[in-house]
């Protein structure tokens, strides 16, 4: 117990909770906390250019490290600017503690300068939030905020601190083990149910693992256990956008991403399987497509730490509430101990069928010698960076889907993208946070020119802190995904999806004191990517691509998995059998 001001308690609590970097932007109502940040070296502050950028940077930091991301913003506009980031973090289950300044307690409700109802505004977009009205509560609230953000299904927590509380003196206490009064997420799965799941798996003829971001959130051990279980069973595995990297893309049992822009083999396997084992995935509408035609013939097992994810969209046959790592550990153990032998013949036939779907080569596209195809740009980026210590972030749209389809993730926590909320402008600030956490790694934001302009100002942050992020802009001058939908579903009426006036990204880079590169021809792509990788400062890479390219495969909304649209380069032979498919077990 030490006497200190509320502002000093904030710094002490951050340091005690292991926060090394806090992303923020000062303002009137947080000045005491900024004062406490001054002349101390326990917590380093990263000055962003917009509060939304602070939250996304903290998300990138959190998702690439598994730690809680921390943010500090002022009252009123500081808090409202953070709302998009908070909602993003809630949708994608990213652990954050966001500290907001508030007008002094006696002015709350008075329409004071830069006052807003922060707890009211952020209630639906946080896992939990606090307004601290007594300095004696502050240490407990701060430590509790970290506990709630990181435990169970992770999420953002807001702590709103009025300015007078920041000035007030009180006794600080360090974090200690405690039990929350009501909040006690269940982490261990019910053993009987896990046993039942293992029995169902052993009896399955056409099984499939469908995994999601929950595996990544559960920590490295969950990914390792998932890999072990997939190897032990010999089952095929697909994953959502959020789950990429939990299972290595180079592995033969990997079917690629599923869902609206997933592979032919992943979606057909979902449709035709007889047992679906969902691990840390939430049956989102981008995954299921038309619900009444979603995987009609399968039994479904659902493992999730959040009971409200179960039976929300799709009724499952067996629900196991628990942390993925815990449940997978029990599953591996029980599978090893089980005397049941899977039907090898059936599994072989299943793999043969999957081989046929694979032969469709659904990610194929027609390349060109004249113009850079966006898929080609991402493939080259992958080829020239594979094997390196690399982290990828993205913005939202076509480029994001192509990155998910074509960049091959072998490890968890290497892929940071806005999945649930689909926030354009996520990738650049997220890359700032990732690079800060991994100063010696390569961090690339695969971007679209429209998205990246939404948070472009964070280039300035990257330059200020010597964060050599690479912003690889797939520039088709369109909001590509909007244009694609307009082409396919709105009669080619391209309402406001073309950007008439774009900045010169090379000059823009120079204006930020960063490095700019433009690439317009496929022939020079490799050389320019190598240049980007060589430069040890932030880079804006303007990759000028075919503006008309569409992202396939695609399940048009309202359709089931077996009614996918394919690009014209995919194999036409419906039932091509590959040798590959035959030998898989």
């Amino acid at each position, binding site marked *: 117990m030490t006497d200190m001001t509320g502002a000093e308690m904030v710094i002490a609590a951050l340091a005690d909770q292991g926060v090394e970097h806090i992303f923020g932007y000062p303002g009137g109502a947080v000045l005491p906390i900024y004062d406490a940040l001054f002349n101390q070296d326990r917590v380093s502050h990263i000055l962003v250019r917009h509060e939304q950028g602070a939250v996304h940077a903290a998300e990138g930091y959190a998702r690439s490290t598994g730690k809680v991301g921390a943010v500090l913003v002022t009252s009123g506009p500081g808090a409202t600017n953070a709302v998009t980031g908070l909602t993003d973090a809630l949708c994608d289950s990213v652990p954050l503690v966001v500290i907001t300044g508030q007008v002094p307690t006696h002015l709350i409700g008075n329409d004071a300068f830069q006052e807003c109802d922060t*707890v*009211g505004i952020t*209630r*639906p977009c946080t*896992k*939990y939030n606090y*307004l601290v009205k007594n300095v004696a509560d502050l240490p407990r609230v701060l430590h509790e905020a970290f506990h*709630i953000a990181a435990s169970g*299904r992770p999420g953002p927590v807001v702590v709103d601190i009025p300015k007078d509380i920041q000035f007030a003196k009180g006794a600080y206490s360090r974090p200690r083990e405690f039990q*929350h*009064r*009501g*909040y006690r997420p269940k982490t261990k799965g019910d053993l009987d149910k896990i046993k039942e799941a293992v029995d169902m798996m052993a009896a399955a003829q056409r099984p499939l693992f469908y995994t999601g971001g929950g595996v990544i959130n559960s920590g490295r051990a969950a990914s390792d256990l998932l890999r072990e279980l997939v190897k032990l069973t010999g089952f095929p595995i697909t994953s959502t956008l959020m789950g990429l990297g939990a299972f290595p893309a180079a592995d033969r049992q990997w079917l690629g991403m599923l869902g609206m822009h997933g592979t032919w083999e992943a979606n057909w396997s979902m449709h035709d399987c007889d047992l679906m084992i969902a691990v840390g995935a939430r049956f989102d*509408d981008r995954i*299921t*497509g*038309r*619900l*009444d035609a979603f995987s009609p013939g399968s039994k479904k097992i659902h493992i999730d730490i*959040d*009971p*409200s994810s*179960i*039976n*929300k969209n799709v*009724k499952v046959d067996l629900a196991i509430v628990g942390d993925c790592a815990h449940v997978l550990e029990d599953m591996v153990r029980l599978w090893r101990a089980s005397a049941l032998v899977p039907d090898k013949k059936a599994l072989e036939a299943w793999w043969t069928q999957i081989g046929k779907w694979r032969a469709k080569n659904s990610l194929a596209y027609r390349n060109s010698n004249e113009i850079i195809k966006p898929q080609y740009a991402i493939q080259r980026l992958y080829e020239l960076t594979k094997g390196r210590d690399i982290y990828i972030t993205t913005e939202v749209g076509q480029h994001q889907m192509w990155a998910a389809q074509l960049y091959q993730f072998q490890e968890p926590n290497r892929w940071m993208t806005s999945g649930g909320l689909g926030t354009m402008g996520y990738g650049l600030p997220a890359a700032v946070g990732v690079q800060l956490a991994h100063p010696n790694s390569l961090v690339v934001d695969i971007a679209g020119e429209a998205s990246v302009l939404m948070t472009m100002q964070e280039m300035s942050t990257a330059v200020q802190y010597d964060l050599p992020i690479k912003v690889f802009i797939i520039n088709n001058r369109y909001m590509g995904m909007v244009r694609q*939908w307009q082409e396919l*579903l*709105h009669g080619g009426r391209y309402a406001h999806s073309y950007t008439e006036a774009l900045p010169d990204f090379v000059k823009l880079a120079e204006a930020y004191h960063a490095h700019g590169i433009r690439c317009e021809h496929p022939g020079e792509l490799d050389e320019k990517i190598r240049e980007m990788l060589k430069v040890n400062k932030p880079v804006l890479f303007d990759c000028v691509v075919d503006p008309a390219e569409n992202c396939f495969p695609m399940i*048009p*909304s*309202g*359709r089931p998995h077996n009614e996918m649209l394919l690009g014209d380069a995919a194999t036409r032979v419906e039932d091509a059998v590959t040798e590959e498919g035959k030998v898989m077990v």
Partner: protein
Amino acid sequence: MNTAATTHYPAMTTSQQVESRTLCVLVDNEPGVLARVIGLFSGRGYNIDSLTVSETEHEEHLSRITIVTRGTPMVIEQIKNQLDRLVPVHRVVDLTSGGPALQRELAMVKVRGKGEHRMEALRLADAFRARVIDATNESFVFEITGASDKIESFVNLMRPLGLVEVSRTGIVAIGRGPEGM
């Protein structure tokens, strides 16, 4: 092209029966807790037919919220799970599916009138075991407790007799038998 194909989202497919449920929710009595519960209902498009709240355990600062809601079985399950994951929520109990339960409401009914109307109002109040808790030369306030339909009939009977206004608590509920929630 049909509408399902032009929307960005899958069409609604459920055609399950809608049921009414009474849920009891034990929460920390802290600022904003009711806003969290109500915000959950409005934000996710759930119905609230009745809602009552009061602190029931003063030492522990626990409040009990009784909510009557409607939805398909899948939606009801969602409502319970969503409520349960709110940080200040301790327990959610479904009194409709969890065995026999008692449901009561209290209403105060103000009636204004003279002569025969006044006498009739008093007679009916007696039949319904409503108590007079305020009286003037031309008015009564009745207090009545009971199941909602009983209160509903009483109020309807008072209408032609000079009904002025009604104030109702909404439903409070408790399970039968020796066990607590």
